[in-house]
């Protein structure tokens, strides 16, 4: 049974239509929710959490109706907001404790569990300091901790890595993966950072102009329509391109040092090596070509704009 089922949701703010007959199903695993700004992602999340009521349509989250049973939904869902929000005047551990208590934990259990979760999030003694003294990265970790403290089955993370420096970003993505693969949680990540999606997500959903434009497994999306190799050289690729063309192999030049070689790799790869060695140019990397997620995204958004105009 899918975890989230939404049918024909529409939400109007006055004359502005934020979500337009949106239908979506989400299963277990990590789903990346992408979309241009203003496409309706935040509205969609609010509708899923029951924070705003939709103008029409219906849906179920974890088996609960989004209109009638939103309190139940919010008990089982953890939400990490994108905004820099915090509870004023509290320390880190107190914030997590309050978050757990608001999710119906008892006071002592909330405190104990809070410490456990802050350990998992990599927060040390700074948990005893006032939240207002925290840096952006620490606040983000704290929001993440507040989202997972009550052990929810479904996590909705809005821009989980946006303020983090490279090391923290890796750790955060790691944690998200652990929660999904080892703990079996379903996770929805809304983000603009496509490389994050490539690293972590199983599935990609693209929302544009209030509708779902694309909902597909990441692997399927990244498969190149025809097999090809992307070869990158330490030097100019021009001579190699020419010699490959002489062997009747279709080649596309991506930039000065990179070529895309079409054809079965068993045939093309030896020829590439020969040509490189003959031209005395070292090969930096050879990888099977993947459609970049950026291309997929731009294409999907473009199609929506064309369809709407």
């Amino acid at each position, binding site marked *: 049974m899918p975890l989230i089922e939404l049918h024909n949701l529409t939400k109007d703010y006055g004359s502005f239509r934020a979500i337009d007959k949106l239908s979506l199903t989400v299963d277990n695993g990590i789903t990346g929710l*992408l*979309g*241009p*700004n*203003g496409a309706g992602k935040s509205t969609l999340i609010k509708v899923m959490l029951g924070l705003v009521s939709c103008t029409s349509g219906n849906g179920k989250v974890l088996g609960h109706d989004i209109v009638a049973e939103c309190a139940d939904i919010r008990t089982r869902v953890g939400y990490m907001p994108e905004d820099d929000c915090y509870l004023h005047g509290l320390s880190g551990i107190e914030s997590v404790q309050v978050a757990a208590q608001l999710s119906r934990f008892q006071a002592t259990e909330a405190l104990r569990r809070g410490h456990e979760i802050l350990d998992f999030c990599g927060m040390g003694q700074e948990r005893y300091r006032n939240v207002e003294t925290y*840096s*952006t*990265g620490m606040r983000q970790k704290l929001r993440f901790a507040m989202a997972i403290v009550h052990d929810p089955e479904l996590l909705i993370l809005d821009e989980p890595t*946006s*303020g*983090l*420096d*490279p*090391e*923290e*970003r*890796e750790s955060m993505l790691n944690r998200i993966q652990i929660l999904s693969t080892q703990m079996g949680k379903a996770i929805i990540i809304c983000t*603009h*950072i*496509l*490389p994050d999606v490539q690293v972590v997500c199983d599935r990609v959903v693209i929302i544009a102009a209030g509708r779902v434009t694309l909902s597909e497994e990441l692997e399927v999306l990244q498969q190149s329509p025809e097999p090809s*190799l992307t070869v990158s050289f*330490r030097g100019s690729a021009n001579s190699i391109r020419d010699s490959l063309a002489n062997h009747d192999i279709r080649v596309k030049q991506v930039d000065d040092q990179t070529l895309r070689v079409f054809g079965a*790799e*068993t045939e093309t*790869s*030896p020829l590439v*090596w*020969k040509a*490189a*060695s003959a031209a005395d140019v*070292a*090969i*930096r*990397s*050879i*990888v*099977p070509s993947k459609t970049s997620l*950026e291309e997929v*995204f*731009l294409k999907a*958004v473009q199609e929506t704009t064309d369809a709407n105009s």
Partner: protein
Amino acid sequence: MNEPSTQPVLIEFESVTKLYGKVLGVNDISLTLPQGAWGLLGPNGAGKSTLLNLLTGQLLPTRGTVRVLGQDPRNNPELMRKIGYCPGFEGLYSSVTGRKWVAFLLEMHGVRRREALERAEECMAVVGMRDGMNRPISNYSRGMRQRTKIAQAIAHDPQLLILDEPLSGLDPVGRAEMTEVLRTRIANGGSLILASHVLHEIEAVTDSFLLISGGRLLASGTAEEVHELLFDLPIEVQIRCDQPERLSGLVMSAGLADHVSLGRDQSGTRLLKVATRQTADFSAQLPKWIAEHNLQVNELKTADDSLQTLFNSLMKIHRGER
């Protein structure tokens, strides 16, 4: 560019230290950068904003001297005409339209009103704000405000563009478009310094970077240059080959690797990982082996090519963990 640059040196820092009372901004930075595109990379609170403020003359160094394009940036309107700055904070007037705001800032550079308005229109179109430029800024979304800031920074066609997290808040479409704008400028001979903590943003625009942490400049250059200078760090190469055992034997007997490991990846394909310090020799030998022994090598990746791995290694060394 309006005036061809006669200055080969873009930026010169000589033992620059900036302290805010007891709090450290930057700590003894010495740097000479030639013209080109540079990414300024570092964790939060590392001193990126301090460094950029020193470059634009908004801060005076506690010690040391700063030279941009050969001049002191402090109180230097002449120099400011050659520098474009896209700040991290939002300092936009809310009731004016985007176009008028950019034009106003242009007028402050001495451009006449009519020219300023035309030029503002051009620049807003370049950053993709053709539709929104005549709406008041209070109406703009975050992404639109970012684009307007970039427009303002490029409007007077500066030699040096300084950008503080210009892509934050933009969706992937916006990122791709703005990255393209920056790449075009670089291709046309402009210099830029791009501060960000998102490595992909920097990688998409330029190879060269400056790594700063705790106010100290840790390293600068391209990933390869830096890596070569770090001793005790072999580069790991991942190879997918049909005869991995043979290849590993060849590599080890030629003495070109510290160690090799044979394993499988997540999908079960056999992988050979070679840790070597002689990348050049290895790269030269590999095609010969392939030809001699009829090997099929269909995948070759150098694990350390990404800025992420290099960043991790550098930070570990910096903390004394390696």
